[in-house]
Structures are given as C-alpha cells and as structure tokens.
C-alpha cells in the first residue's frame, strides 16, 4: 500500500540546524545576567565531613553564591529509591560526590573559588569490590539509614538486613532447576563480568537553572526526560510541579541513558535563588561527564545451564551481582529489567535467577543504553556458545533450537508478540556466509566468525501523551515531551502524523519540549518513543480529526461520521468535490487574526497508556490474566561478525559485521540503519576498548584520550557492514512499528567474543576484551597446553 510518509527516508526535522550549526543546543544557550556554577567534589571515597570552610571562596571577587547542604532543602531524591541529597550531608560516599556549589561571574572565577574551599575529611573504611560490599558483615555500611528510605515497591522486598549494602533485589523462579540439571546431558558453569563504562555523549551534561523572584523554577537542560527531571526537581526542592518548568532544546547532543535523571539542575536552582535569582549555567567538565553524571553498572553474572544432546536448554540458574556505586539512582530498576533479559530470547523450562544491586563507594551507576541488557547478553550469548561447544553443536543451531517463536508464552508467563528470533539469525548468518570457507591464517592474524542475539524489553506500565495542533495556515504542530537526543524521534512523530492526517510531512513540525506547553511523556528511554509516543501522536491525530469533522459537518451539510481528511481538505466520503479547506473553518474578523467558531483550537489530545500484568514478587512471573504482558513490547537483534586476532599482540580487527534488528515496521529506514550502526561505536567500543579504570574509587582515565571509543578507522570499511531491517508487525504499534535502539549494541561484544573463540580457542569472560587481556589469555592457554 502506497504511503505518504511511512517507510520513507524523510530528512530529519532538525537536520538543517545540525548541518549548518545554527541549531541551539543547551550548551549554546546564553542568558542576560547569567552566572557560572562549579561544584566542589569529594576527594575521598567514604568519609565524614569534619569541616567545610567556604569563607575564602565567598570572599573572592566575582563570586555570588556558595552553598552547602544546609543551604538546600533537606530532602533526598532518587529514582524510586530516595537516598541522595543535593549536596553531601554529614559524609561523602564516593570520590566525586558534590559537597559545595559555587556561582560566579565566569567559569574561571568559579573554578578559583572552588580551589579556595577547604574540606576536612575523616576517612571511613571504604568498599569497592561488590563481593566485599555484599557480605553480611561488610567492611562498612554505606547507607546506614537504608531501612528507612522511601521506596517505590517494584517486586520482592528490596531491603535485606542480611546484606546491608544491597539496595535492590530481583528474583525469577520457574520450574525446578535442580530437577532440570539432573535431566541435562551436559551442564556448563561460567562467570562473566564487565567493566564500568561511560556514556560519553558528545554534548557534555549541562543546564541553565533559574529560580525567579516569584518562586518559579525554570530549567533548560540537555536532558532526555523532561518530566522525570521535573519530578525530581519537585522532590529535591520540595516544590509542587506547577512551580517548575523544564525546557529541552530541540538539539540534544546524545544521551544514551545518561541524561535521564536530574544532574545539577535542582542544585543550580538553589544557587540561583542564593545568587539573587540569576540564571545559573553549569557545564560538566569532560571528567565530570564521564565519571560523575552516572556510569554503566559493572555486573558479575554467574550462569549454570544444562542442555540436552539435541541442544534444548533444560535448566538455567543465574546469580547476578551489580556494583551499584554510592547512590541508587537507576540501580534497582536495572536489576529488575536485566533479570528478564534471558527470557526474551530463549525458552527455559526451568529457571532460577537472583539479582542483587549493591552499594559501593564508587561513582553511581545509572541507565545506560540497554539498561543491564548489554551486560546480561554479554554473559548469556557467550555462554550459549560454550553450551554449543560442550555438546558439539553449531552455535547457530543451538540458538535456533531454543529461540522463542511468535505467540509463545515465555518463562515469565508473557506472550511474545512480533518475535523475529529465527528471521534475524537467518539474515545475519546468510550475510556473513556462515559455514562457508574463509582464510583463517594471515601472518600473525587468525580469523574467526561469531554471532550473538539479544533482546530488549520496553518498560510497562508506560504512558505517553501528545497534543496535535492544526494551525490556521494548515500546518501541523506536534506537542510532545519525548526527547530527541539524536535518534530522530521527532521526525518519526512527524511521519506518523503526516500519514494519519494525509499531509505532506514538510507541513508538520514538532514543538520544543517545554513542560508548560508539551504534555507528559514518561521518558526518552527503554526504546519506547516510537511505540508509546508514536501511538499517543496517532491518537491525538484521531482526536483532532474529530474536532475538524465536527466543525466541517454543518458547513458541508453532512454527518461528521461521513467525513474524511486529506491534504487539509475535509470532504464527504466518496464525494471528493464536496469539501471545505481546514483554513476556511476559521473566521477572520477585520484585522485581528482568525479564530474557530467553536472549541477554541484544533488541538487533538490523547494519552497512550500501556498497562502491565501483576507480577508475583516471589517468582517474577505474571499469571494467566488475559493480558500476559510484563513489558510494552520486546525488540530483538542479532549480529554476526568476522574478526581477526593478532596472536602476538592480542589486537582484534573487526572486518565484517552483519547487523539485524526487528523494528516491527520501519517508519524511516535510513534512520533505522543509522541506529543499527551504533554497533560500530558503542557496541564495538564496549567490546574492545571502553573501561573506566578505578583505583580505590578514583577514576584514572577520565578523558577522551584514555577513555577510548572507536574512531572512523576502527570500524570496518562500509563494504564490510551490512544492515538488515526485519519487519514483523508489532500488533499494537503505530503502523505496527516498535522501538529498537537499545538492542542495537548488545550483540556486538558476545559476537566478537564468540568469534575470538572460533579464531583461537580462547574464551574471554570480561569486557572490554582489550589486546593486553587477550594476549594474556592466549599465554594462559599456551601455558596450560605445555603443562599437559
């Protein structure tokens, strides 16, 4: 069926602003009387604050405010576990924790003021290792008041006095794993870990905050979640929502999950008030942006899986420890979400999972593209190859044996819709030429091939609201608070609205996110915008059409129910010559603009809400409630790679990659491909190079030279990259589309790990698989061989 906009490679709405540099990002904003903020951060990982002397800083010329915790509302904010003050209260819990904030006339003066602040610490024992922290008698308890923290209940009891540093827990139970292991022909146990990594958005975290004389707080932020931010500012500052306004420019330089929570917007609002109600700008330094704006959680994943000779998984037991860092932030949600990761890929007749997230004196972990799934699939997909090798089965065959199929009810009790398990595997194995010959030896290089699949569940419950306005010039304006941080969500909405209203997409635009204008959206995350936001936009289009028809009906002397809209002409079904233009529904008295005779505005409004089934906190499963839905939808991915390993240096070259994603329906195929190419930056980076190197809570490589992600020369040539969009309709998606951009990076590391095993018979269990680690693993294998 021919479409106006769906399936077309429409250019990005914000494209001109980006290619000409005319688009204003938050970092480009400048306001009259603006002051610059800097934060004085803790240099100790766990310590009492004995003395904080700000007198010299306050006395410095050009400094307008210096605040500590006692100058701030005595609240605790969080993301479902409310444990964090705006500034450190009686002690600090990680190197980097904000202790003092300064507002001054320039960045340089603010920095100088920070240098003049004297802080005396009394060190407390610190704990960095997740096992040490998890003990019943840990070296230290990081949050002594944890039992009394306000929480949003999301499953089993989160606080466990047996593990006083654990702040989140999730469990899944299905069948009986012990019985299952007895039935297995082969049982494999392994442990996988991953390093702490950073989002490293190219636009560092930044914002402007203003607490004006009327007590209203306005914030401009490089954020991906306007209403999350608004809610957290409300809680942190103890202000009602109606006193807060969050504005997110149409240009946001990347987020990847690192710009969901409040960073310093609330703190800078307090500074603004203290500095005489002046706008306060803060730009995180590269170090702050990498280390102290939220990192990706290191996981340790233990798996024990039993399989039959024919490859069928019988039983799987997983134990996960998540290093949460010093404050909860997204930690306990990541724990929950990640726990379901395996269940979206495969069938597990017997399954047992326990997942704890634990406080340590390290920088806090937050949402990171994949929300724990990248770590889970690193372990699971490497482990699947181990299972395959244990029974002498091809890695493709074992996956095909166990992968979920359309309509199947998974181990958690969820019905699986829009399942592209087999299709994705077929796409990538065909593209890479799985099973065909290739040259394995090339001097010191050894080639190998590997594959991996992944999935990502999108959260539920989920709510997105949208307004769609038709202006008197027949242009369409979408008012939506979903953050476009580069993934192109605004253009997706434009295409959906254009299709629904049958207009040229060039006549549709989106409004800047402004919580006084654009209504509630849960957040730009969890791959949910196309699905939830898109559905809200379509529903709002339906609503505005009804308003149009109601106005046009008397003009056309027809029933509203007999009308259609296309090209901004309202016409009677089957009689296109009986029409009225939308602009002619407005009246124009004399010289004061135009108005609608009734209703005020053509403004469609809608809420799209996805509910979720009740989940049994003891089992993590949902019951037979007719819905069988724990998440909004599931998106799947698969990648096959061909790599070369240098057996003398441990270096890995990615030579070919086939990337497949199931998108429900490709609204903008070019944008879909672009998202899939993230495998070549974030996927490849996390697989081979990226790690924040910690030393007793301090990060040693907090700059872009030593925190390494791929350059243009690290990616293969374009001829070595193939992308495969698989469309299996998501029944309740907008035009059967769904989101997918988190699953685009999860398969890369395990596919490479599996290819390394194929090349040299070495199994890497920690990511990143740096050259030095690979060489050490090669040495260990050679030493073991010699010893035999």
């Amino acid at each position, binding site marked *: 069926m021919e479409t106006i906009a769906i399936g077309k*490679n429409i*250019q*990005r709405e*914000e*494209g*001109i*602003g*980006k*290619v*000409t*540099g*005319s*688009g*204003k*990002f938050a*970092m*480009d904003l*400048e306001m009259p009387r603006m002051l610059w903020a800097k934060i004085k951060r803790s240099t100790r990982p766990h310590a009492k604050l004995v003395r904080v002397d700000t007198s010299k800083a306050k006395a410095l010329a050009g400094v307008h405010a210096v605040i500590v915790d006692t100058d701030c509302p005595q609240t605790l904010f969080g993301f479902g576990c409310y444990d964090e003050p705006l500034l450190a209260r009686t002690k600090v819990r990680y190197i980097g924790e904000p202790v003092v904030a300064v507002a001054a006339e320039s960045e340089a003066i603010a920095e100088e003021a920070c240098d003049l602040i004297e802080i005396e610490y009394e060190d407390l024992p610190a704990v960095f290792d997740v096992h040490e922290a998890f003990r019943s008698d840990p070296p230290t308890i990081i949050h002594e008041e944890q039992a009394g923290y306000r929480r949003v209940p999301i499953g089993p009891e989160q606080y466990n006095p047996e593990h006083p540093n654990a702040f989140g827990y999730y469990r899944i139970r299905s069948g009986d794993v012990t019985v299952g292991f007895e039935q297995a022909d082969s049982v494999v146990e392994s442990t996988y870990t991953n390093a702490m990594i950073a989002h*490293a*958005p*190219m*636009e*560092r975290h930044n914002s402007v905050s203003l607490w004006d004389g009327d007590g209203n707080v306005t914030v401009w932020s490089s954020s991906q979640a306007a209403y999350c931010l608004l809610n957290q500012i409300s809680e942190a500052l103890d202000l009602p929502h109606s006193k807060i306004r969050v504005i997110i420019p149409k*240009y*946001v*330089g*990347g987020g*990847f999950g690192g710009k969901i929570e409040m960073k310093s917007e609330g703190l800078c609002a307090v500074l603004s008030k203290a500095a005489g109600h002046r706008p306060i700008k803060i730009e995180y*330094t*590269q170090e702050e942006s990498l280390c102290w704006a939220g990192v990706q959680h290191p996981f340790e994943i233990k798996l024990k899986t039993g399989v039959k000779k024919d490859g069928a998984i019988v039983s799987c037991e997983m134990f996960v420890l998540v290093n949460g860092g010093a404050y909860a932030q997204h930690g306990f949600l990541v724990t929950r979400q990640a726990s379901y990761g395996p269940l979206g890929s495969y069938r597990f007749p017997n399954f047992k999972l326990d997942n704890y997230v634990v406080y340590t004196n390290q920088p806090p972990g937050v949402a990171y593209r994949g929300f724990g799934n990248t770590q889970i699939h690193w372990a699971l997909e490497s482990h699947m190859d181990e299972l395959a090798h244990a029974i002498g089965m091809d890695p493709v065959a074992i996956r095909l044996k166990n992968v979920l199929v359309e309509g199947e009810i998974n181990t958690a009790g969820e019905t699986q819709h829009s399942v592209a398990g087999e299709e994705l595997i077929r796409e990538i194995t065909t593209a890479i030429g799985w099973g065909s010959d290739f040259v394995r030896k090339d001097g010191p290089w050894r080639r190998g091939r590997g594959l991996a699949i992944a999935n990502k569940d999108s959260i539920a419950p989920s709510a997105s609201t949208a307004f769609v306005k038709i202006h008197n010039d027949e242009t369409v304006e979408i008012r939506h608070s979903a953050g476009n*941080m*580069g*993934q*192109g969500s605004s253009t997706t909405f434009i295409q959906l609205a254009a299709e629904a209203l049958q207009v040229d997409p060039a006549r549709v635009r989106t409004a800047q996110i402004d919580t006084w204008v654009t209504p509630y959206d849960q957040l730009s995350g969890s791959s949910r915008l196309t699905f939830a936001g898109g559905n809200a936009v379509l529903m709002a289009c339906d609503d505005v059409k009804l308003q149009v028809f109601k106005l046009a009906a008397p003009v056309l002397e027809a029933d509203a129910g007999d009308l259609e809209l296309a090209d901004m002409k309202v016409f009677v079904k089957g009689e296109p010559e009986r029409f009225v233009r939308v602009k002619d529904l407005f009246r124009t008295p004399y010289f004061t603009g135009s108005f609608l005779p009734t209703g005020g505005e053509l403004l469609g409004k809608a809420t799209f809400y996805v509910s979720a089934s009740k989940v049994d906190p003891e089992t993590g499963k949902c019951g037979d409630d007719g819905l069988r839905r724990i998440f909004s939808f599931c998106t799947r991915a698969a990648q096959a790679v061909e790599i070369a390993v240098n057996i003398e240096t441990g270096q890995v070259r990615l030579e070919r990659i086939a990337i497949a994603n199931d998108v429900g329906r490709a609204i903008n195929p*070019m*944008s879909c*491909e*672009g*998202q899939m*190419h*993230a*495998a*070549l*930056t*974030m996927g490849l980076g996390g697989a081979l190079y990226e790690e924040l190197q910690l030393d007793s809570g301090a990060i040693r490589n907090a*700059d*872009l*030279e030593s925190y390494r*992600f*791929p*350059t*243009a*020369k690290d*990616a293969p*040539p*374009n001829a070595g*990259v193939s992308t495969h969009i698989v469309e299996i309709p998501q029944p309740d998606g907008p035009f059967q589309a769904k989101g997918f951009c988190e699953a685009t990076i999860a398969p890369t590391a395990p596919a490479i790990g599996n290819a390394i095993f194929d090349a040299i018979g070495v199994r890497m269990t920690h990511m990143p698989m740096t050259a030095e680690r690979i060489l050490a693993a090669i040495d260990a294998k050679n030493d073991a061989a010699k010893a035999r």
Partner: protein
Amino acid sequence: MSRNLEFELNGKACRRDVEPNTLLKDMLRLDLGMTGTKETCGEGICGACTVLVNGMPVRSCLVLAMQVGNHSVETIEGIGNAQNLHPLQQAFLEHGAFQCGWCTPGMIMTAKALLAANPDPSEAEIRDAIRGNLCRCTGYVKIVEAIQAAAATARGSNPLAQSQ
C-alpha cells in the same frame, strides 16, 4: 590586558579585542556568538571544535585566538546556510550522516578541507582524514557515504545532484 586582533572570518574582515588567554573556540562561541563550533573534550582529541585556518583544519580548543591574527578563519556558519547549503551539508542531510549532530560541524569542516586537497578520495583516505573527528552515535558509515556523495557532486558525477 586585551590586544587588538585582526583576521578574516568567513570571508569578511574581523577585528576584536581579545585577552591573550582567550581560546579561538571561546572567541567564536562566547564573544562572537557563533555557536556552530562545538567542544567536547577540550584537549584536541575529539575534533568537535574543528575549524579551518588558512583552509586547514585546526583544533580551536587548543589555538589561542591571538594566533589567528592576519589569517583566515572559516567556520560552519560560513560554508552554507539553510537557503544555500554547501554540497557537504546537503549530502549529510540526504544520507542521514548525523544523529545527535554535535560532531557534525567539526566533521563537515574536516571533510571540506579533505575534498579541497583531494577531490576524489578513496574510502580509506576519507576514514583517515576524519580519524580525529569522534562520533558517538553514527558508527561513521553514513558519514563516509555522505562525504563520498559530496565529492561526487563536486566532481559533477553524482546522479543525485544532476536530478535536482
């Protein structure tokens, strides 16, 4: 103590009073309000701050404004605008060669200098030229395609350009 600085900016004579410790990037962004030039790492690694001085890419975050006296400086604002896009800008739009857009101005300026010196670059030469422009979003695939397309347009051999 501020000094007089005279240079050419996007083809026009420009005169500013600058402090010696003003970086070229800050003179452009803060003093002249030309925020098209971005900054990420601030230490010459990422390339977001790339502008052209005498036609050559430089790191405006590491060059003192004082040092461009009597030189020509070209920024993203000077190569095209919404009504009259440079072929590179047009190609980036058509090929979806950006996502968040923060690395884009620096990337385009580097590509402009490349094509001026090498109108028919191979893919390897393109990747080598942009190796100092880090992108966190795109994986570089469409950036390479866009530069290839712009090169072809400039050489008159791009069917896309001919059909316009």
